């Protein structure tokens, strides 16, 4: 441990966290608002990386889990007298239940078939939200009565603490024996099975963990915004953004997902003046990174260091 305390990485981590923590003293509400969204997005991307990077499954459906958490919590808040924090927990629980219901059949499949299953899950959720527009607000959105806080600083700290805790837990899991087993099953399922690991059980656990944090982040995000809408928490476009964030940041790094998400959201804001073309530029950058730096920002840095 003492070696760890002396390592420069530890100090960089401390400095970075300290910087994020004192940012509200100086930064305007606008910048904090952008970063608040970026932190929730970071949790989405990190949860996705656990399943995709480590377990090797192409999951097109992160927004199925996020959407279940967000709409579960939002609708409970709208239609029941439950307090907000209970709605958030219930939302996360609904996401885990939905995740298991999806994972049990889907984990029998691999490659594009698994991908399709997760894609269909998102499409079904979208259809249900649109069909029951009377209670869900349909394609446009559902206004929820409660909000986390109307103070920009408070919202920023909620998101920051939430991202740090979730990132810490997901990172620890990925570095634990479980993470190594997941990585092994992702790369060579037959060999992993031959070594006596119950692949399905481990993947199911990864799925549940991913679902829990996705759902929790989705629920918290809608109570930050005061509204749940399809194009912030369910749409395929959101799923694609999450995938881009994780791939940009570097797969199999967990933390890379958060970096990619912060980069994407901040870049989106900086490019706002160019209007509708901003999404085009972001997608182009992501494609170029994918083609020329396939390991992502963090992956590339790590590889270079490893080579030295």
């Amino acid at each position, binding site marked *: 441990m003492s070696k760890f305390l002396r390592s420069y990485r530890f100090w960089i981590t401390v400095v970075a966290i300290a910087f994020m923590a004192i940012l509200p003293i100086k930064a305007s509400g606008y910048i904090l608002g952008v970063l608040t969204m970026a932190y929730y997005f970071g949790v989405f991307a990190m949860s996705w990386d656990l399943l995709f990077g480590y377990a090797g499954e192409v999951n097109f459906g992160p927004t199925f889990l996020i959407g279940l958490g967000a709409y579960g919590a939002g609708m409970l808040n709208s239609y029941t007298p439950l307090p907000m924090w209970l709605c958030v927990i219930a939302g996360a629980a609904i996401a885990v239940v939905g995740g298991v219901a999806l994972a049990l*059949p889907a984990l029998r499949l691999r490659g594009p078939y698994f*991908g399709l299953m997760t894609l269909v899950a998102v499409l079904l959720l979208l259809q249900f939200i*649109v069909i029951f527009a009377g209670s869900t607000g349909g394609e446009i959105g559902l206004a929820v009565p409660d909000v986390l806080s109307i103070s920009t600083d408070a919202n920023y700290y909620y998101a920051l603490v939430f991202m740090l805790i979730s990132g810490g837990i997901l990172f620890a899991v990925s570095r634990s024996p479980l993470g190594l087993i997941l990585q092994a099953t992702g790369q060579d399922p037959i060999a992993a099975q031959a070594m006596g690991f119950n692949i399905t059980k481990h993947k199911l656990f990864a799925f549940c963990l991913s679902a829990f944090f996705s759902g929790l982040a989705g629920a918290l995000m809608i109570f930050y915004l005061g509204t749940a809408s399809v194009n912030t928490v369910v749409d395929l476009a959101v799923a*694609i953004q999450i*995938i881009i964030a994780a791939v940009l940041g570097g797969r199999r790094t967990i933390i890379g997902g958060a970096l990619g998400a912060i980069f994407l959201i901040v870049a989106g804001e900086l490019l706002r003046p160019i209007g509708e073309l901003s999404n085009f530029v972001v*997608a182009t950058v992501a494609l170029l990174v*994918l083609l020329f730096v396939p390991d992502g920002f963090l992956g590339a840095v790590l590889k270079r260091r490893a080579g030295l």
Partner: protein
Amino acid sequence: MTLVMQILVDGFVISSLYALGAIGFTIIFGVSGVLNLAHGGILVVAAMVAWYMGANLGLGVYPACLVGILAGIVMAYLTYYLVVSPIERSRRIPAEEKEIFILTATLLWGIMIQEMLAYIFSSNPISVPRLVPGITNVFGVHTPTNELAIGVVSWLVILGLWFFVNKTRFGKAILAASINPRGVSLLGFELSSIHRLVWGLYGLLAGLAGVLLATFIGASPTNVGDLTASAFIIVILGGLGSVPGSLLAAYIIGFIETLTAYLSDPSYRTLPALFMLIIVIYLRPQGLFGRR
């Protein structure tokens, strides 16, 4: 009785369009192992170019549609040379991850196409004038003649494709390539020239599907994702790479949707097909006609 006829006519038209849209997608997978998630983007490019040529440059409907199809072919080649081929050749990407990279990269490419179209033409839905005006009475069902023409054109193209694959030298080479890529060189073809040909064929089919779509239900850049998803679903249900499987799947999905729209409520249209898809994939993960 009219209800039965309505369902038959409507189901036939929409299914034929689905089939046309999905065939190119499945051929590309069969021959080069690429799942092109920018598929919807290519359809919409063809549709919007045809619309622009007709509505803003004053071209007649047929020349406009031809330019639209041409745009589909150009887009297919751009997809191949700018996105797919660099990944296939990359030495930095491990072989076992290429599939995932192509999925993600074509997905991004699709977004780029969608955003560019929205920027140039706005995201308002557009519609190409009908190829054949008028109304035909099919056993008591008022059907725009154009829709019947769409069904007929789709089937002519499918038959043409069958003829091409089974009766011509190039076609046979494509068939061979989809079964065993190494065998192709024995027939005296370069695998790369087969790929070039197949991407052109794919562009033609996608361009045609996009243009016909625009004359029937219209198109908009916001449709890109939905169109890709629907082709993906049909192709997986039919069995990846299987043309007959895709045809059957297109008809199954088209008719289930139409039945749902008529017998319950048009809003529920896509639900039963999605549920059925889950069940089929669960029981038979390789799809109806797929090889394991």
